[in-house]
């Protein structure tokens, strides 16, 4: 969190490192295994709730159905790469409309910026998949091997039937969760019930197994084994988000003004002249990142608030006020006011800017989405040859018109041409000059057509490029679209 300024006494830029053994310092450090103790309290409850809700959404979403009519997928949320569509309930995003997805991602990023500017690393602490899955994996580990002390003991034990059994059960459970995780992800890309059946009978496409394997292994490796290493060494976000933080952003800090000088406290000892911190290290024991929050804000801290729960529990027990470790701000710590969030300003230029951008881009996207036409078209004039001289001295140009029917029903269209006097239209696939052109539900149909001008009518042309308008009209509803193009001829 370098942006907050290196001079700040609350900031140290330190990953957990162990002092060297007095020799040439090693360029490599082994991972110190972390044994997080279970925390109890408000923030632990919030994290459980977030875990249940986010995993619930993740697993259930691909199974929701949405009737789109015959011949179309009925999966509510489907990233239909094969047909180049993204299906979100009633919304169909076509490949050429991917800017809606880009816009949604931009709004999401800005929302992340806003939350970070106001409340710090909320994403890291609660919502990041790495955090959620690591939390789940630790819970499973705790279920099989017991809490912190039991796990520490188990790891120091010699190998025994009990140890093998507990370790094996843990890893098998992790792998099972990983398979289900990878399995759920591939359901977003292919009709879920069909794919589930194919997976069960071993007839799914090869690529489905490949991605199932990839996501299984990444979940197992990143959530089960690597855990905090991902946040500290792999993730760019801890480095980037410093740009969104300032003195008014919430962050979790040990409030040394209350806590110091720390030290063990006997039951009948006075609290006069000493801090509230009894150096019980409960905050260190629960930390999934293996750090000491009392060292100040640090890159490795994902701001999960479990140390707040742990410390509050101790404070309750020894009869001191809560929030020795609390969500606070740098401004608050510097001014050393009483409550942890006194002087916290939410509305400031940075948050106003993010909010305005979110409203502007989100509003523009929503407006354009609500007003997008059910009929779209494009015109591509032939370029080779640009024009053809006919035997009577007339000219002919060829065009490929693409009719895009965005409705979920088949429709019929007529194509009209205007702007060139005496223009005659003929089609390759259809007879006559004004055929009914059927376009299936949610499909694109390219139509090749020729526009000709007889020799005598060439007088009406404007040089080598006469403006021409090609229009497409729904034969039933009259909905129309038009595109301007040119009718080419020889240079004059």
């Amino acid at each position, binding site marked *: 969190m370098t942006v907050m300024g290196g001079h700040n006494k609350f900031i140290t830029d330190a990953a957990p490192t162990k002092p060297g053994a007095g020799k040439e*310092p090693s360029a*490599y450090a*082994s991972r110190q295994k972390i044994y997080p103790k279970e925390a109890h309290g408000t923030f632990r409850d919030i994290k459980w709730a977030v875990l249940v809700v986010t995993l619930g959404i993740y697993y259930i979403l691909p199974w929701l159905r949405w009737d789109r009519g015959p011949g179309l997928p009925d999966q509510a949320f489907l990233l239909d790469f094969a047909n180049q569509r993204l299906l979100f309930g009633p919304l169909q995003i076509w490949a050429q409309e991917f800017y809606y997805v880009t816009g949604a991602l931009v709004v999401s990023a800005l929302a992340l910026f806003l939350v970070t500017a106001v409340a710090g690393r909320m994403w890291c602490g609660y919502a990041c998949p790495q955090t959620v899955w690591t939390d789940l994996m630790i819970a499973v580990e705790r279920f099989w091997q017991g809490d912190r002390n039991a796990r520490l003991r188990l790891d120091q034990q010699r190998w025994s039937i009990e140890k093998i059994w507990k370790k094996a059960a843990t890893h098998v459970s992790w792998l099972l969760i990983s398979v289900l995780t990878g399995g759920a992800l591939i359901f977003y890309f292919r009709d879920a019930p069909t794919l589930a059946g194919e997976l069960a009978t071993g007839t799914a496409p090869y690529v489905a197994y490949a991605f199932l394997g990839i996501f299984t292994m990444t979940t197992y490796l990143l959530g089960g084994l690597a855990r905090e290493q991902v946040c500290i060494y792999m993730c760019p976000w801890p480095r980037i988000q410093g740009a969104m933080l300032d003195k008014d952003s919430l962050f979790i800090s040990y409030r040394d003004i209350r806590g110091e000088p720390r030290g063990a406290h006997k039951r009948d000892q006075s609290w006069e002249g000493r801090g509230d911190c009894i150096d019980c290290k409960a905050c260190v024991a629960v930390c999934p990142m293996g750090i000491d929050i009392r060292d100040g804000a640090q890159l490795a801290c994902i701001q999960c608030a479990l140390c707040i729960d742990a410390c509050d529990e101790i404070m309750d027990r020894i009869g001191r006020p809560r929030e020795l470790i609390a969500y606070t701000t740098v401004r608050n710590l510097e001014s050393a006011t009483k409550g942890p969030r006194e002087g916290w300003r939410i509305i400031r230029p940075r948050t106003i800017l993010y909010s305005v951008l979110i409203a502007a881009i989100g509003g523009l996207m929503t407006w354009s989405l609500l007003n997008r036409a059910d009929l779209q078209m494009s015109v591509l004039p*032939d370029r*080779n040859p640009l024009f053809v*001289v006919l*035997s009577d001295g007339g000219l002919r140009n060829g065009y490929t018109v693409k009719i895009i029917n965005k409705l979920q029903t088949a429709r019929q269209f007529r194509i009209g041409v205007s702007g060139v006097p005496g223009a005659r239209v003929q089609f*390759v696939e259809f007879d006559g000059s004004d055929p009914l052109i059927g376009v299936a539900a949610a499909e694109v149909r390219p139509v090749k057509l020729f526009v000709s001008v007889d020799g005598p009518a060439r007088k009406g042309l404007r040089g080598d490029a006469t403006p021409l308008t090609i229009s497409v009209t729904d034969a039933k509803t009259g909905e129309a679209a038009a595109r301007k193009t040119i009718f080419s001829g020889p240079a004059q």
Partner: protein
Amino acid sequence: MGEKHIDETTGAETTGHVWDGDIMELNKPLPRWWLYTFYACIVWAFAYWIIYPAWPLMTGYTKGVLGYSQRAEVAKDVAAANAAQEKYRAEIAATPIADIKKNPELFEFARDGGAAVFGDNCAPCHGRGAQGAIGYPNLNDDDWLWGGDLEQIQKTITYGARAGNPDTHDTMMPRFGLDKILEPAQINDVANYVRSLSHLDVDAAAAARGKQIFADNCAACHGDDAKGNTDIGAPNLTDAIWLYGNSQQAVMHSIETGRGGVMPAWIGRLDPVSIKMVAVYVHSLGGGKPEPSKVEDGKPEEKEHHDEKSEAPK
């Protein structure tokens, strides 16, 4: 270096290296698993060399234990694509060419397949867009030397023009100049006359003299009205399309030498289905004529028939 170096400001360990007397570097060790990941990548590279084709040798390359080859993959894909197309190709072979359009799916396949065949085989002379060049007909327009309905196009592609094939179009225009059939002055006159039919600027006196020369020498093939005859490849001399150009010089040169462009017979080079598909493609370029049975209200597609030999592409 036996002791630890501690940076006073941060209290953290330094690497012990000193630059310019006082610049030191904090020691931020890389996680050891990252190092192992690097080693694993090296092992992977060695495994790759053994399993897949990797090293060039003097006369070849190491094949790898799996025997994998991208060429074999391509051959497999091509075979699969051919097998998938076989159904359509069989249907095209069984369908009269004029009926292909009645099945939109088959028509699309024939047209797109024909475009591919055209690009590989016909584009070198006729151009990528079939736009032609001097001496090579533009296949987009509505003027056809040998007829522009589907069957006529198919026949021309199959047997070619002056290609040495027994069924080829082999009528030739006489070399009126080289063989001394006409005097240079007569050639000049008749060229003026022919060009006057297309309302080009001509020497009116010469054109008037050329009219009789035309009737005596050219009308047998090109017709009294000079509108040509597709049965013998005699071009229409009254329209705006000139295969060899419409200047006085170009037209005189055509009369002197007889021209006589050559197109290879594609039977034997292409399979009959590919020829059928390329005919459908060429016909769909915009100038294709309807089948004779479809011509109803006496459109000028049908031309007068002349039996005499002697033909002139313009």
